[in-house]
């Protein structure tokens, strides 16, 4: 294996120890190579935005940013007050104001001089403290820490309670406007009711001399500052901080308060052992709106984080904050806000109309499940988002613990509040186990089985989910475990209702002669395109969306079955059944398809399917069904056909079948499997030999791992002599099998079209038969 292959294989292993041991065994003595791959892996893990933003995009962003700061500093900072330490904290304001005098007009800038200049005289009392600007009631004003469109934030010392506080003072020109003044006070009083560790506490709301509120002083920096300095955060940090933001919002929402301006500049990170989130400026965005009306007539704040309904001026509820939370998470993960444009109006249009650029385009390592969560928060319609901040918080907490426990989040199911009535029916059918999960909303499933004989599928499902469960084997039992307790068992065909929880699915088959060859979890999207994860390949996420169908499939082989031949191998022909067939069969090929119509063929009246002749090709695409030869006495034969099949298509040639209505078990007989792409569990590629029995369903007799090109003509041969079978592709042996039971001796040949997403076409179908046609009769 070369360096790239080693790197990519190691990357599939999420665990560092597993990676190391893998590299040790794969590199052997080549320590140089091992060191090299380890360096690459370390470079890969390194955070930062290296190469993530196309160079032209960086140029455009740099331009746009410099413009925004130059032209729009007022609206951009309108609500950014809080304790926004991303701004410099000049101390100049206090130097000459120890007696309560105001800095001279003309000391323009962020030091609060304009604010002080506009304040009524004597609103601050002289102070005796050397480091104080002045006194406001019991508070010694120490310095100006932030300046926004509607208020100024001062750091102060509470002389009564002997603690440092922050005071937000409404700007004097707003204080002069009665509605703005009233709204500021009303919102501030509502916000004062919230007591939560992730919300900046408001200690007091005062009306005079200027309306102001006294709040907790949070040492630290804003999330905006953190992102500006450090770029994107790790997934672990995003989950941890994101959960705290959601907690703070949940507390506010519980008090019927909407924040309206959730953004990185309003999220304070308190320094400590681990930084701790404190959300500030609850409800003050509306005051900011009043502020902007007095100023420029533009929309207040940074619309980049606004919910669409907010941008459109519609009625808001708490879910508007969830949209903004989605934007904040997006920025934490990618380092940039999701909706960017040259001016505020263009941003608003993007917020209401556009889907943000996929985060994985920017940083490919962001896990799918996290993209799903952000995507759900970013739903344009509030009703499609999560229902509450509490729900988001719980989800993020679960992800966090999963990440800590296993090193990666195995699966996030949808949070679905729609509970579907349980409807359990039982219909014994057969072909491994098929579970259809009715997916109501987005989610992720993963196959994380490690035990070969009894695979355990881990399924983490959040919220209520109705699982449409189809067991087509009749004998395979699937058990659902939650926290080690068996909660449900399925051996039939029906639905399983799974409340929120972590599940393990265990698969058993009572026949000790069978072993599980592979388990596949397959999602079919609305175009019937298959997406799957397999037990036989390293764990991957499978993304689920509304309208998808999910099937769980187990492929069994008899234990003594040999491993599949890895590829076409010209050296194996001495084992071929042709040596037996050639002397037995004539050299005459008999056409089974005349190239014009389906004479010589028929479909079962109860399941006619979609077989027809199209441009000289025998074609099936649409409703499933089998096409039978009218001739019903095939025993030994050598069939060959030219066939092509679409990606994801599943078809086959079944030998020695009776003329009966196909069931979910298909038809009893031997099958030469035909498929392109990987639709099924491993081993079910073209040329695999399988058997189906009425009560037992499909079982693989000889697997094949040969993937054929979709939509390309191939020549498939199927030879059956007595109890021996063989498949060949393009003249080469694929699989050969001896059935000691000889389950099927005589019958029709049928062409399979078993799934509606399949399009299969046959160009030539011909057989050669024993010299004396009915010599095998009565055996």
């Amino acid at each position, binding site marked *: 294996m070369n360096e790239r292959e080693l790197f990519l294989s190691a990357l599939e292993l999420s665990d560092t120890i597993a990676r190391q041991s893998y590299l040790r065994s794969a590199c052997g003595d080549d320590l140089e190579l091992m060191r090299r791959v380890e360096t690459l892996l370390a*470079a890969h893990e390194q955070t930062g935005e290296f190469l993530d933003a196309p160079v032209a*995009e960086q140029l455009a962003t740099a*331009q746009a940013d410099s413009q925004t700061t130059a032209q729009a500093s007022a609206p951009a900072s309108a609500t950014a007050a809080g304790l926004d330490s991303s701004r410099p904290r000049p101390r100049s304001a206090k130097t000459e104001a120890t007696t309560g005098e105001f800095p001279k007009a003309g000391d323009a800038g962020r030091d609060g001089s304009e604010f002080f200049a506009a304040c009524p005289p004597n609103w601050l009392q002289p102070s005796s403290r050397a480091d104080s600007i002045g006194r406001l009631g019991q508070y010694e004003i120490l310095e100006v820490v932030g300046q926004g469109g509607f208020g100024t934030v001062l750091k102060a010392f509470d002389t009564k309670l002997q603690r440092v506080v922050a005071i937000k003072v409404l700007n004097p020109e707003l204080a002069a406007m009665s509605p703005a003044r009233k709204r500021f006070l009303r919102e501030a009083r509502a916000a004062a009711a919230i007591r939560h560790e992730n919300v900046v506490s408001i200690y007091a709301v005062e009306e005079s001399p200027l309306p102001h509120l006294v709040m907790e002083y949070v040492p630290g920096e804003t999330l905006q500052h953190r992102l500006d300095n450090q770029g994107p955060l790790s997934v672990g940090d995003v989950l941890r901080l994101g959960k705290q933001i959601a907690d703070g919002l949940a507390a506010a929402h519980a008090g019927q308060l909407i924040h309206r301006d959730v953004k990185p500049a309003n999220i304070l990170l308190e320094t400590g052992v681990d930084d701790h989130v404190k959300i500030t400026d609850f409800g003050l965005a509306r005051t900011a709106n009043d502020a902007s009306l007095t100023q420029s007539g533009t929309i207040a704040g940074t619309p980049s984080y606004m919910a669409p309904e907010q941008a459109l001026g519609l009625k808001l509820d708490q879910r508007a904050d969830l949209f903004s939370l989605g934007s904040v998470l997006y920025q934490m993960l990618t380092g940039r806000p999701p909706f960017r444009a040259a001016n505020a109006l263009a941003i608003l249009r993007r917020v209401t109309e556009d889907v943000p650029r996929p985060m994985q385009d920017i940083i490919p390592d962001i896990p799918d499940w996290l993209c799903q969560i952000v995507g759900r928060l970013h739903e344009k319609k509030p009703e499609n988002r999560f229902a509450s901040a509490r729900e988001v918080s719980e989800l993020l907490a679960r992800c966090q613990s999963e990440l800590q426990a296993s090193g990666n989040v195995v699966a996030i199911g949808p949070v679905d509040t729609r509970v579907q009535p349980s409807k359990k029916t039982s219909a014994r059918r057969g072909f491994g186990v098929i579970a259809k999960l009715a997916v109501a909303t987005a989610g992720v499933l993963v196959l994380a089985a490690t035990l070969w004989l009894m695979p355990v599928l881990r399924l983490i499902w959040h919220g209520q989910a109705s699982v449409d469960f189809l067991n087509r084997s009749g004998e395979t039992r699937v058990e659902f475990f939650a926290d080690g307790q068996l909660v449900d068992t399925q051996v039939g065909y029906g639905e399983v209702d799974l409340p929120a929880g972590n599940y393990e699915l265990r698969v058993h088959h009572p026949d000790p002669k069978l072993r599980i060859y592979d388990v596949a979890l397959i999602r079919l999207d609305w175009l019937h395109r298959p997406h799957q994860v397999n037990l036989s390949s390293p764990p991957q996420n499978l993304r689920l969306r509304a309208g998808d169908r999910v099937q769980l499939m187990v492929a069994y082989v008899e234990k003594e079955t040999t491993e599949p031949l890895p590829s076409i191998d010209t050296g194996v022909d001495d084992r071929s059944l042709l040596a037996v067939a050639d002397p037995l069969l004539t050299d005459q090929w008999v056409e089974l398809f005349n190239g014009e119509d389906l004479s010589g063929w028929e479909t079962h009246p109860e399941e006619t399917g979609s077989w027809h002749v199209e441009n000289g090709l025998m074609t099936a695409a649409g409703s499933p069904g089998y096409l039978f030869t009218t001739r019903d006495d095939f025993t030994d034969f050598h069939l060959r056909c030219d066939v092509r099949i679409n990606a994801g298509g599943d078809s086959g040639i079944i030998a020695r079948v009776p003329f009966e209505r196909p069931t979910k078990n298909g038809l009893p007989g031997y099958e030469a499997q035909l498929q392109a792409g990987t639709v099924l569990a491993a081993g079910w590629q073209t040329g695999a030999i399988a058997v189906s029995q009425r009560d037992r369903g499909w079982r693989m007799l000889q697997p094949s791992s040969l993937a054929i090109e979709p939509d390309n003509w191939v020549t498939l041969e199927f030879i059956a002599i007595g109890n021996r079978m063989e498949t060949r592709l393009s003249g080469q042996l694929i699989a050969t099998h001896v059935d000691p039971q000889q389950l099927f001796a005589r019958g029709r040949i049928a062409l399979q079209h078993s799934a509606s997403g399949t399009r299969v076409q046959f160009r030539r179908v011909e057989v050669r038969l024993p010299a004396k046609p009915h010599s095998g009769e009565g055996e």
Partner: protein
Amino acid sequence: MTEVTNILSKIREGDGAAADQLLPLVYDELRKLAALKMSLEHPGQTIEATALVHEAYLRLVDGNEHRNWDSRGHFFAAAATAMRRILVDNARRKKRVKHGGDFQRLASDNVELAAPEIREDLVALDLALDRLKSIDPAAVELVQLRYFAGLSIAEAAAVLGVSPRSADRLWAYGRAWLRTELSESEDR
């Protein structure tokens, strides 16, 4: 039939050498377009690489060829290489200006892409890409399409004719390789 359409159809017919003729034409067009944009657009507006490449494509290739995905792929691959040259040359010039040299040339060159702060050192990246090309040319193509021509991973995957997942993996490798190479050359 335009010259580029003609070359594209030659490439499709299996004339490997024709691809070499594509690059200078695409390069010229992109430079011209970039210069034109800079003179027409409002100050502060910058060139969007992807938009530029699309526009060059529309200008250089006959309409009836537009539906041919193979042609698009070849064109985009050439355009990505051209964008790399333009941007790297530009960065190289900036470097020289910083060090006081070659002012004359800068002044006479009307294709001036504003380049405030690019995170990556384009000149070093260019050299690293040359080295990577001898090891893994596909990874270089992907990096060019993604980083220089501004295509998304999915679009780049389509141009390269690989699955998005393969492209993701190739991207991970290429990025890690380049990052290692750049940090090692810094250490030296």
